[in-house]
C-alpha cells in the first residue's frame, strides 16, 4: 500500500469521527472587567479527544487569550484541575465522549480559591496548608549507613496516599473549604497521612497534633466530595477518617 492511500484513509477516519461540541467557558479578565462571563466556543473535535485538547484548540486556533494551566498533559503534574460540567476533574484525563457532548460542556475554575484569570486560580493558600503539615520525612538519631528499610506491609499501609499529585481537585470540592479557607482541606490531610502512617517517619505525633486543632480533621463533615473528585482514585475521605481514628485511639 502506498503512503498516499494510508494518508487518505487516515484523513477519512479523522473527519468521519469528528463531532460538533460547545465549550462553555467561564472567562474572567481583571484587565477588562470585574465580572466573570460565560463564553461559548464551537469546536469540531473527535469525541475520543480530551477536554484539554479542546482547550488547546480554542487557545491555538480561536482565541489566544484563553488562560489555563497545564504542563504534563498526562495526569501527572496536577496543574489542570478544573470544574467540568460542575465536577472537579483533570482536563487532561477527561474524554469528551464521557461527559455528554450533546449538551454544552461547562468549564470553570476550581472553587474556593481566588480566580486570577479565566481558569487560573491562586494556589498559594492550598500549598500553605500543604506546607503546614510538614510533608517530608522527619527522623531522630543518626542516619543509617544504608537505606531505611521497610517491610512490604508497612509500605502498603500508606500506599494510597502516596499517589497524590496536589491538583487541589479534592480541597476545592469541599464545602467546608469553600466557606472557610482556614480549614486544612483534604489534600493537606492526605499528605499528612502519607507520613503519619509511614513506619520510617518519627514526627507522626507532631502532625497529628497539628491536625487535632480547630481547623484540622474535626472540621471534616464526611461529604465524600473529595473522594469523588480525586483523579488519582485516592480514598480521600477514608484517609481523613484514619487520621481521626489515630487521634482518638491515641487519647483513649
Amino acid at each position, binding site marked *: 500500500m502506498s503512503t498516499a492511500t494510508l494518508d487518505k484513509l487516515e484523513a477519512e477516519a479523522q473527519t468521519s469521527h469528528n463531532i460538533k461540541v460547545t465549550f462553555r467557558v467561564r472567562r474572567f479578565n481583571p484587565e*477588562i472587567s470585574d465580572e466573570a*462571563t460565560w*463564553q461559548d466556543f464551537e469546536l469540531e473535535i473527535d469525541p475520543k479527544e480530551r477536554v484539554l485538547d479542546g482547550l488547546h484548540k480554542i487557545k491555538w486556533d480561536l482565541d489566544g487569550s484563553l488562560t489555563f494551566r497545564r504542563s504534563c498533559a498526562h495526569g501527572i503534574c496536577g496543574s489542570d484541575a478544573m470544574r467540568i460540567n460542575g465536577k472537579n476533574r483533570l482536563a487532561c484525563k477527561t474524554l469528551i465522549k464521557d461527559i455528554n457532548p450533546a449538551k454544552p460542556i461547562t468549564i470553570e475554575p476550581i472553587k474556593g480559591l481566588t480566580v486570577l484569570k479565566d481558569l487560573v486560580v491562586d494556589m498559594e493558600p492550598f500549598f500553605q496548608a500543604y506546607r503546614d503539615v510538614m510533608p517530608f520525612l522527619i527522623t531522630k538519631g543518626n542516619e543509617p549507613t544504608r537505606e531505611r528499610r521497610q517491610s512490604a506491609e508497612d509500605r502498603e499501609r500508606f500506599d494510597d496516599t502516596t499517589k497524590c499529585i496536589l491538583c487541589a481537585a479534592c480541597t476545592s470540592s469541599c464545602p467546608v473549604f469553600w466557606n472557610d479557607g482556614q480549614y486544612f482541606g483534604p489534600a493537606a490531610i492526605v499528605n499528612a497521612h502519607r507520613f503519619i502512617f509511614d513506619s520510617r517517619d518519627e514526627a507522626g505525633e507532631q502532625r497529628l497534633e497539628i491536625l487535632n486543632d480547630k481547623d484540622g480533621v474535626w472540621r471534616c463533615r464526611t461529604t465524600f466530595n473529595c473522594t469523588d473528585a480525586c483523579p488519582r482514585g485516592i480514598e480521600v475521605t477514608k484517609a481523613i477518617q484514619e487520621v481521626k481514628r489515630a487521634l*482518638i485511639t491515641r487519647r483513649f
Partner: protein
Amino acid sequence: MSAETTTPAVNESVSLFDADNPAPVIEPPRKRTKKTPKSTRTNFELYGWLFMRLSGIVLVVLVLGHLLIQLVLDGGVSKIGFAFVAGRWASPFWQAWDLIMLWLAMLHGANGLRTVINDYAERDTTRFWLKMLLYTATVFTVLLGTLVIFTFDPNIR
C-alpha cells in the same frame, strides 16, 4: 449558572479597567496565610466530635421514647395537661430522663449550631457575636429547664 452566555467585552471601547488598573479579584472567605496555624494544643474539637456521636446514640432512645410517650401512646397529644406533667415528674425516673434529655439535646444542638456558624459566618465579628448569642441562649435554656425540673411544685395555684 443559567444561560446568561455573553461574549466578553473585548472590543468595548469604554472599559473601567486596563492592564495598569485591573479589577479587584474576588478572594475566598478567610484565606489561609503563613500566619494561619495558631495552635491551641487542646483536645476540645476531638471531644466535641466524640460527644456529637455519643450523645446522638443516647438521644435516639431518649428523644424517640419521649415523642412516643408524648404524642402517640394513651390518646396522643390530647392527654397532655398540667396533671399529666405533674404525674410524670412525681417519679424520679422521668425526672432523670427529662433532665438528661434536656442537657444532651441542648449541648448537642448547641455544638451542632456552633459547627454551622463556623462553616457559614465569614466575618470574624459576625462569628463571635453569633456564637455569643448561641452560648447565652443555651446556658439560659439549660439552667431554666433544670430549675423547673427540680423545683416543680404540683400544688401550685
